[in-house]
């Protein structure tokens, strides 16, 4: 281990540190490398190394549509582009892709796609469940365009094939990382609405294939009986009357708890046959 003393007393000017952090996190004043991108056809010179999203903002665009989480989880910034002189049609997430010289960019503000509605408590997973709710999957021509369009690099065509076979588990697992940007659906010549179907499959899997937690069931019974009420009352009282004691109790629980938890979990997992 690196050091004995856990906290050295350091004489520091914390306000100065905060200013340094702020400066480090701000965009650099000088730009050395530039690239030219074409936003819906118009050329803009932007600093190299920015994401497509930040580059558009640098160029003066202020997003209303087309920006959501800005971290690759929401699918709001689905982007299509070609590079100068290339025949290939490419897709990307604007927040997760670095600009390159000569990109011709357009962002997709909205994807029209119909979602089948269903009652999750009544629908039953059967071999024909997907063909019933999304019959257009039968039109899949296995062209793999959906897979090529996926910015998450999922095996989209495979899960559509699995859906045709009625394999709920496989659709759910292959599609799990889907961010529902809709690029597959826009590109599909068979007009399949992949990402809505995949959502349906995952819910079927989560509800009907994964077993319900036995521990949770037991705990809910205890909760219903009110077994924790007394304990909560005690802590409430302790907080009002003896706040220092509460702190001690916390410290005890957290240190002892961690040790105990490790042993308990190890033994239980052995007992249950592992994680």
């Amino acid at each position: 281990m690196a050091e004995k003393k856990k906290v050295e007393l350091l004489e520091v000017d914390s306000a100065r540190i905060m200013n340094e952090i702020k400066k480090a996190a701000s965009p650099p004043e000088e730009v050395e490398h530039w690239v030219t991108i074409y936003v819906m056809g118009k050329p803009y010179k932007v600093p190299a190394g920015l994401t497509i999203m930040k580059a558009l903002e640098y160029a003066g665009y202020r997003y209303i549509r087309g920006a959501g989480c800005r971290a690759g989880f929401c699918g709001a910034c689905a982007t299509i582009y070609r590079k100068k002189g290339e025949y290939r049609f490419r897709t990307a997430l604007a927040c997760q892709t670095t600009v390159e010289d000569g990109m011709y960019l357009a962002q997709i503000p909205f994807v029209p796609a119909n979602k089948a509605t269903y009652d999750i408590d009544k629908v039953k997973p059967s071999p024909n469940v997907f063909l019933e709710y999304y019959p257009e999957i039968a039109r899949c021509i296995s062209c793999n365009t959906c897979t090529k369009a996926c910015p998450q690099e999922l095996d989209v065509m495979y899960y559509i094939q699995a859906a045709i076979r009625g394999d709920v588990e496989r659709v759910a697992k292959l599609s799990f990382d889907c961010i529902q940007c809709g690029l597959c659906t826009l590109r599909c010549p068979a007009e399949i609405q992949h990402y809505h179907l995949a959502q349906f499959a995952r819910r079927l899997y989560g509800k009907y294939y994964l077993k319900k937690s036995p521990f949770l069931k037991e705990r809910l019974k205890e909760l219903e009986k009110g077994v924790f009420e007394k304990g909560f009352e005690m802590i409430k009282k302790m907080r009002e009357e003896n706040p220092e004691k509460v702190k001690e109790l916390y410290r005890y629980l957290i240190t002892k708890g961690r040790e105990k938890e490790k042993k308990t979990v190890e033994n239980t997992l052995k007992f249950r046959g592992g994680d």
Partner: protein
Amino acid sequence: MAELKMIRGYPEYMRESIELVEKTREERIRNKEKEIELELSMKEREEVLSKFHPDYAPGGKRELRIGPNKGDIVPNEVADILEAWPALNPDDVDLSDIDYDVDILVIGGGGAGTVASLWANYEGIPAENILLATKLRHGDANSMMAQGGIQAADRPWDSPIIHYMDVLGGGHFANKHELVKALTEDALLIMKWHEELGVMYDKDENGNFIERWGGGTSRMRLHSAKDYTGMEIMRVIRDEARNRGIPVLEFSPAVELITTEDGEIGGAILWNMETKEYYVVRAKATVLATGGWGRLHIRGFPTTNHYGATADGLVMSYRAGARLRDLDSVQYHPTGAAYPEQIVGLLITEKVRTMGATPVNKYGETFVFPLEPRDVEASVFIRECYARNNCVKTPTGMRGIWLDSPMIEELRGEGAIRKNLDAMYRMYKRFGIDMTKDPILVFPTLHYQNGGVEINANAQVIKANGEPYPRFFAGGEVEGGVHGKNRLMGNSLLDYNVFGRRAGISAAKVARNSGKPGKLTLKHVKLFTKEVEKINVPMWRKSPILLPDYRGKRVLARKIDLPVLE
């Protein structure tokens, strides 16, 4: 910057430090058990917090001069928007012409708003009598981005009371009792509900949840769905809202609450950001679910938050007379990406540490227990970078320490990262870095609004005088009190589910049992404007701000508005 020689995603000079990290890896893995020895005592925690946490460093906060919380200390960026001129001029609005007359108005289409709509619907409010209005798209929210997991004490050797104690200690004992009790007890109902909806949690073959450590917890109770937990829950509840036909208005944020002559909340003014027209919504009950403040970039920090996290809900409810609490405390997540530049500030889930990755400095040395509460962990990182200088500097000047992700593969077997942290793996891969083979560089990032609009256990918003509003509710990051001064991992997904649900149920009760609200008014906005007049606020400072502005300086310097095409 000059052209740097890049080797597998990192500039050559950073590789030198990576080699040092590789050298100590084996020994660190052997001594993984001993990391707990580095855990700080309560006194030591105070020491690092007071010197290195951005909340404690002078110069970042000021006293509020107007409104219900006059005299309270909040971050400057928050004071700026709370004390700003109302963006909406009440005289421009005709309140007698009502566009939507509904039972329940839900403001915000993230997790809390969606859960509230669903539970109001379960409680018998027909979908068509609910309106969910949101600033971006339905589901564009921090809820979608949460990766690590959700806490619930379902195992027999755990209990809601132990969960309560962890929340309390993590929150520096400032948490409101009734809220923490609700949070930890309802956690179990929420997990049950999610099972029934079909959320794909990681489970073993018997159906038991796979549960992991979270920072500052005494039990392993973090339930996850790979590292897409937030996304998985959000897309399922959104799908359910769509199945049930809950009406949603996108790109139409609320810009001001509507009050009533008898001092109640009677709905809100929405503003269609694309057509620029306003809508008057009258509602028997209003639920505030607008999320937090990350995009205010407090103290200039980068943020993990989504594009719309601009604290609009705090601004609107403050003007309408709601009481705020614990806004002096900002959560910085210890591990934001510090490199590469394209993803600076984005979240590196705490699960990377709970899976076994250790934070190490430039020399490959362990310097901190990896699972301290977030504020403590972040402070120790800042100390390592800015006081002890044991950090790596990136080409753009960011400083950071290593999170030794390859340890996960060593400790849990090859493939563990792809199996459990695929979102993280994918993000780094896009920029040429393989986190299964190389460590990743991290630095604290602005993450969460610990406090917010004060509520009670029924999710009713509390007025300045301490009384609850009968028709006004809040859930999710916008509300405060449950986390005290610091939220623990896995409790924000839980928070929005628990209090979104309670807000929905409470709102449904009001909608069933009460008539229309009293005569609508925006008088409170005019009164607030008078207060702003007294304190010398620049005319351009208006709020809610709705979205941050990242346009380039050069463009803004040349930007002019012509009095046509407005």
